[in-house]
């Protein structure tokens, strides 16, 4: 799995790259569908924020990243986590409160992190991960590691003070960080029209001296190209970039959402802009993969998710022993 993760590059640059981009988008889609199903059947606990419809963003971004590059993620973090190369079984196990879960059942969906793939964690706090990514980029600069940090966050998070303070620090210190905004049009029920008095959220960059670009967030190719340029800038010591990807979440904000703040028509319209067929048509047009190969990838993703669910379901549940000792990392003598 980690070997596979090392693939970087333009999604249309080779059959392997196309296969990779497609596989990861399918994985995210199928993972989320499985989660929805498990919740629906009362087998999962807590809350869930699904990223169905938003698969192209994290996939495109992570194709521009090395394994050592770091990310911070959000409450809607499964996609980021998968795209950065996390193990599907351990993710699913976490959601099911199992010992082998990424957090040993202590964190759940909103707190999955994976040190191996540079994922510093999902975050239950809107905007909470942005300063943390900036700090990771600061560490990279101080340690001369050459790594880049990416902060994924939603449109809603841009109105938090955390975004502002972090963006300015990134700008003045020219840190290798990418501020990756997934503008899915809503922060819970509040639309970008009501929450902002600007049209292009990437314009926020102007106030910090950070270049801001807006791309079609449902086009993995466009996302990759913007990210690749931003990563190059970052590695070159030229500082941060704010990338706004315009996308849409198909599902409610979380399980309890009745979607009263948007129309069925709007949701349907966006379903026609599904990032997966969007990419498939490009792949087919370019003749990089054929339909049969594409179908095989979809099936492979589906099989991987089924396997993950099965493995996770059979794993041992987390037990309350040792919780107190788990609060602090032991001081080494």
């Amino acid at each position: 799995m980690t070997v596979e993760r090392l693939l970087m590059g333009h999604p249309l640059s080779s059959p392997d790259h196309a296969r990779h981009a497609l596989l990861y988008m399918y994985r995210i889609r199928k993972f989320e569908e499985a989660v929805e199903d498990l919740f629906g059947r009362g087998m999962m606990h807590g809350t869930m924020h699904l990223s169905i419809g938003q698969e192209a963003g994290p996939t495109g971004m992570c194709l521009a990243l090395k394994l050592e590059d770091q990310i911070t993620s959000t409450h809607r973090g499964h996609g980021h986590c998968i795209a950065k190369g996390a193990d599907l079984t351990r993710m699913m196990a976490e959601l099911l409160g199992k010992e082998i879960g990424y957090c040993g059942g202590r964190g759940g969906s909103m707190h999955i992190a994976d040190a191996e793939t540079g994922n510093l964690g999902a975050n239950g706090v809107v905007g909470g991960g942005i300063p943390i990514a900036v700090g990771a980029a600061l560490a990279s600069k101080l340690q001369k590691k050459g790594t880049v940090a990416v902060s994924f966050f939603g449109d809603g998070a841009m109105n938090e003070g955390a975004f502002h303070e972090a963006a300015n620090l990134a700008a003045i210190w020219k840190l290798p960080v990418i501020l990756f905004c997934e503008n899915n049009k809503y922060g819970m029920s509040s639309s970008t029209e009501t929450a902002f008095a600007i049209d292009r959220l990437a314009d926020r960059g102007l106030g910090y001296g950070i270049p801001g670009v807006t791309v079609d967030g449902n086009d993995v190719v466009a996302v990759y190209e913007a990210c690749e340029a931003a990563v190059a800038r970052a590695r070159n010591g030229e500082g941060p970039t704010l990338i706004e990807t315009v996308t849409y979440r198909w599902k409610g904000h979380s399980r309890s959402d009745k979607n009263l703040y948007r129309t069925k028509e709007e949701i349907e319209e966006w379903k026609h802009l599904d990032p997966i067929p969007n990419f498939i048509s490009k792949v087919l047009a370019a003749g990089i993969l054929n339909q049969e190969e594409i179908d095989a990838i979809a099936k492979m993703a589906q099989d991987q998710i089924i396997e993950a669910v099965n493995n996770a379901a059979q794993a041992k549940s987390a037990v309350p022993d040792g919780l107190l000792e788990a609060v602090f990392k032991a001081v080494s003598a």
Partner: protein
Amino acid sequence: MSTDNRMLTMAEALREAMGIAMDERPEVFILGEDIGIYGGAFGVTGDLYHRFSPERVIDTPISELGIVGAAVGAALSGMRPIVEIQFSDFTAQAMDQIANQAAKIHFMLGGALHVPLVLRTPQGSGTGAAAQHSQNLETWFANVPGLKVVVPSNPADAKGLLLSAIDDPNPVIFLEHKLLYKIPGRDPVPEGAIRIPLGVSKVVREGKDLTLVATGIMVNKSFEVAEKLAAEGISITLIDPRTISPLDMNPIFESVEKTGRLLVVQEGPSHGGFINEVIARVSESSSFGSLIAPIKRLAGMNIPIPYAPQLEKAAVPQIEDIEVAARELVKSWR
């Protein structure tokens, strides 16, 4: 509908209080995230957005510091804002406006201005939302002079206390346990604008063997224990302070003098937690001499709230834990 059978949930009772206050006074308005069309993350504002107007039930961007600050400014300018913070955990974002501004302005400005503001927010564990969505943070607020702090345990109290909080010329932090929103209380909720003053503890039931002081949802859990143990001949006085700042100690002193035993229960982490105030006040009072057993404290573990249900339960006092503690205190110190 007769008053006798108005078994509202706490969400309904809170909504009713806000509706009454908004009908009474044009200067009352609500602001918060997703409180409009969405009706609030926990459905507390519900249909108020439709009953009133988008100008009086104001949906905000995700900007806790900004909206609490805006509420402070509006409160200084003749309005009576009610801010809803979606989860109490995110009062952390607004802590400057809460603790450094709202709490201090009246005193610091020599009384020239005051801040009639209510900050309502759900707290507590039990929903599987993990460490950043499940905290009990009353300890933070209680230690800030200038804030009043309410922790209602049932719908009827919640309504009456919220009406008083809205009337109050000072900032009031109103901490609602999220597991209580959807369940009806034991008592019906009176109709109309019936207020319960802040700063009056409630003796929920009387007994002679043990004084049990609990806050928020722990009142409900403790009540069940008290009823159960009554059948075994252990008789418990249960006291719900309802407001923890100001804290009305009199019924607690009186009861301790009668029972000689004190058990205090809170959901939040024990270390340095608010409930210690009750212990401290008894320890330094003359009631101290009446104690025939060491004071016992039951509180959350000193850990962040974990996700998996079996872990989450272990983190905070359950009914069984309260039962064991009460039983032990009474039995081993006869």
